[in-house]
């Protein structure tokens, strides 16, 4: 990476990029929670301090309609169904879950590519939940997005220069050194060459295209970038290059990230805090250390046990949890706890009463779990295999 000049310094002077030592400290959560569970403490996912992004009760229901002329509403896909979280300046929050859990919809609601059905999104002190599109441009200056597919997210008829320049022109930003120079600086920042300015996207490989998308997101020096599966379309060896690049940018410019991915290992590497989503709800949110070593929600536990590791010893040691079936339909989610239909611990109470997302006994502060019967706060003592799949004897 090239050293950025003044034009590319942190967008917010108050925000200092966390250096590596700080980062390491911030992820180590105290192992023991405070003995008294005060209400204030029980439901906040982040320790005190100002938030850059506040999401409260966010909902998105896609209406299902029937009929051609007189369309009747016959139901709704409850893609995101009341989620709360916050992201601090310069912080990276990971959003993980299986397909259909609402993680991508959440990303699009935050950037207001979709209109929320309910709840609120407060970004940088301003409520942008229902801000009209014309006025969103202002907020998008600080709120950018990186998309999953490096092929469809770049206009094939525009040169790389035009693609990266456009956000600046739209926002009336005229860098002192001129657009062209600035774009070339950005290209260098993301590890491409300034000579690529006049090339077209089809001349680049997937990894390089993703870098162009990143340069475009950086062009306005945003405070927050929503990255929706930024590396899942890339080859393993290229994936690591892009993850490292994003990490450098986060640390150097103090950019906060909402990092959406289905790959738990990538998220662990990139995000200090991680939220696990299931059927439109956050079922668990915690600092990465706490979440990956002491998952309390059975779903988180099952997810972690399902990730194959490239280590034959780990494969032998690992406890297997094999859930039955797939994620149920978000049109008609199960009552009470949404995970109960695939959960091996489900009892009657789970069907009638929805568990709140709160700190459960034995979890450190900031580790919230939505479960009536949370797992033991340790993975050291692994239990027996849990196999619910009828086909697996």
């Amino acid at each position, binding site marked *: 990476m090239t050293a950025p000049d003044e034009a590319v310094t942190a967008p917010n002077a108050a925000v200092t990029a966390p250096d*590596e030592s700080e*980062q*390491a400290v911030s*992820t180590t959560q105290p192992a023991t929670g405070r003995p008294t569970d005060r209400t204030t403490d029980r439901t906040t996912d982040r320790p005190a301090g100002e938030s850059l992004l506040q999401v409260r009760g966010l909902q998105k229901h896609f209406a299902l309609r029937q009929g051609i002329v007189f369309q009747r509403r016959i139901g709704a896909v409850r893609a995101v169904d009341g989620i709360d979280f916050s992201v601090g300046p310069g912080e990276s929050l990971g959003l993980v879950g*299986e*397909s259909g859990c609402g993680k991508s919809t959440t990303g699009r609601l935050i950037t207001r590519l979709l209109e929320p059905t309910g709840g609120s999104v407060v970004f940088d002190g301003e409520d942008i939940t229902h801000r009209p599109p014309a006025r969103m441009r202002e907020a998008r200056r600080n709120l950018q997005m990186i998309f999953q597919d490096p092929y469809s997210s770049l206009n094939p008829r525009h040169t790389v220069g035009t693609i990266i320049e456009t956000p600046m022109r739209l926002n009336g930003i005229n860098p002192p050194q001129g657009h062209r120079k600035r774009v070339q600086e950005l290209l260098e920042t993301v590890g491409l060459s300034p000579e690529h300015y006049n090339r077209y996207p089809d001349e680049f*490989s997937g*990894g*390089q295209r993703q870098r162009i998308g990143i340069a475009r997101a950086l062009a306005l020096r945003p405070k927050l970038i929503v990255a929706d599966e930024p590396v899942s379309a890339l*080859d*393993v*060896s*290229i*994936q*690591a*290059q892009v*993850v*490292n690049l994003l*990490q450098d940018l986060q640390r150097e410019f103090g950019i906060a990230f909402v990092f959406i991915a*289905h*790959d*738990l*290992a*990538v998220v*662990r*590497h990139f995000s200090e805090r991680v939220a696990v989503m299931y059927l439109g709800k956050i079922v668990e949110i915690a600092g*990465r250390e706490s979440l*990956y070593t002491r998952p309390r929600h059975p779903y988180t536990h*099952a*997810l*972690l*046990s*399902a*990730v*194959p*590791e*490239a*280590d*034959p*010893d*780990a*494969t032998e040691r690992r406890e*297997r949890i*094999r*859930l039955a*079936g*797939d*994620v149920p339909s978000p049109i008609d989610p199960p009552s009470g706890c949404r995970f109960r239909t695939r959960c091996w611990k489900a009892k009657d109470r789970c069907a009638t009463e929805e568990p709140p997302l709160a700190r459960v006994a034995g979890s450190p502060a900031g580790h919230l779990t939505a479960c009536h019967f949370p797992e033991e706060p340790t993975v050291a003592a692994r239990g027996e295999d849990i*196999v619910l*799949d*009828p*086909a*697996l*004897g």
Partner: protein
Amino acid sequence: MSVQTPPHPAGLAPAPAPFLDVRDLRVHFPTEDGLVRSVDGVSFTLEKGRTLGIVGESGSGKSVTSLALLGLHKGTRAQVSGEIRLEGRDLVALPEAEMRALRGRTVSMIFQDPLSALHPFFTVGSQIAEAYRVHHKVSKKEARDRAVEMLKRVGIPQPERRAGDYPHQFSGGMRQRAMIAMSLVCDPALLIADEPTTALDVTVQAQILDLIGDLQEEFGSAVVIITHDLGVVSDVADDILVMYGGRRIEYGSTRDVLKNPQHPYTWGLLRSMPHLTGDVGERLDPIPGSPPSLIHLPGGCAFHPRCAYKGWVPDGRCTRERPELRLLSGSARHLAACHLTDEAKQEIRGGTGPDDHAATARTAR
């Protein structure tokens, strides 16, 4: 033409012929831009009841290899040479009509994307039944019963009812199960799974991998699983073949390749992967550059432009001379194609135990 590389890692087995014996397989595609050497001299063996994992990035030739095993390059412009001996019979030389009789019955395939591999117009049950009726003289009723039985076997709830459903009525994981049911309906002796779980979520992926393993145990099939995910092969494979630029660069048992990798590319793949445990403060260690073009493959070792260790080999041999697969000293069947001497590899690893591939990262820089 290159020197013949040893066809099987054992190197000691002229004894009983292996169940599947691929020798010096080449698949070349003539294009306007030049000859694309997708697969260029690949050899491996596989016994019944065993699983081989073929690993590589996009463009490494792994999928083209799998299509060759099924004889799906016949009648296309592809130039296939070499031998694919299945129970002694050479599939490369086999006429299409005879190949068709084998396909689906003796050799079967699970594709990556079940939505495009299943016909949207026919019910899942009828498609599975058809696959059975092509190879067995049975009534429609019997074939349908067999289809329902297979759906039940792969864990589809209410199989009688679901057999009448169309593919779009199935979820992703169920479609993949239906594909598996279809590929296993004739009890194939060789099952090829091309990225069978790439499109699936992790919990479903784990189900499917377990299912393939269970069914393999039950039917005693040989399985070739093609994937880019080293985690998946670690889970299911007995042997691993690592491909790069259409060629083999490392081949050995799963434990050998993952715990004691011998090729800088394999080191790179393992180091660039993020893990669920261990230190997160450490940066990922990517392989620089990107995979090579198969038309203009770099001379010498195809990996040399991305290799951090070519300086360890004297006289720039890596850029001039293609390394042959060599047996690792002290190992019966662990092959790697690299000019680095064992001593140099030891030194690169900083004298740490052979099990510690992570240590190589630090000492190399």
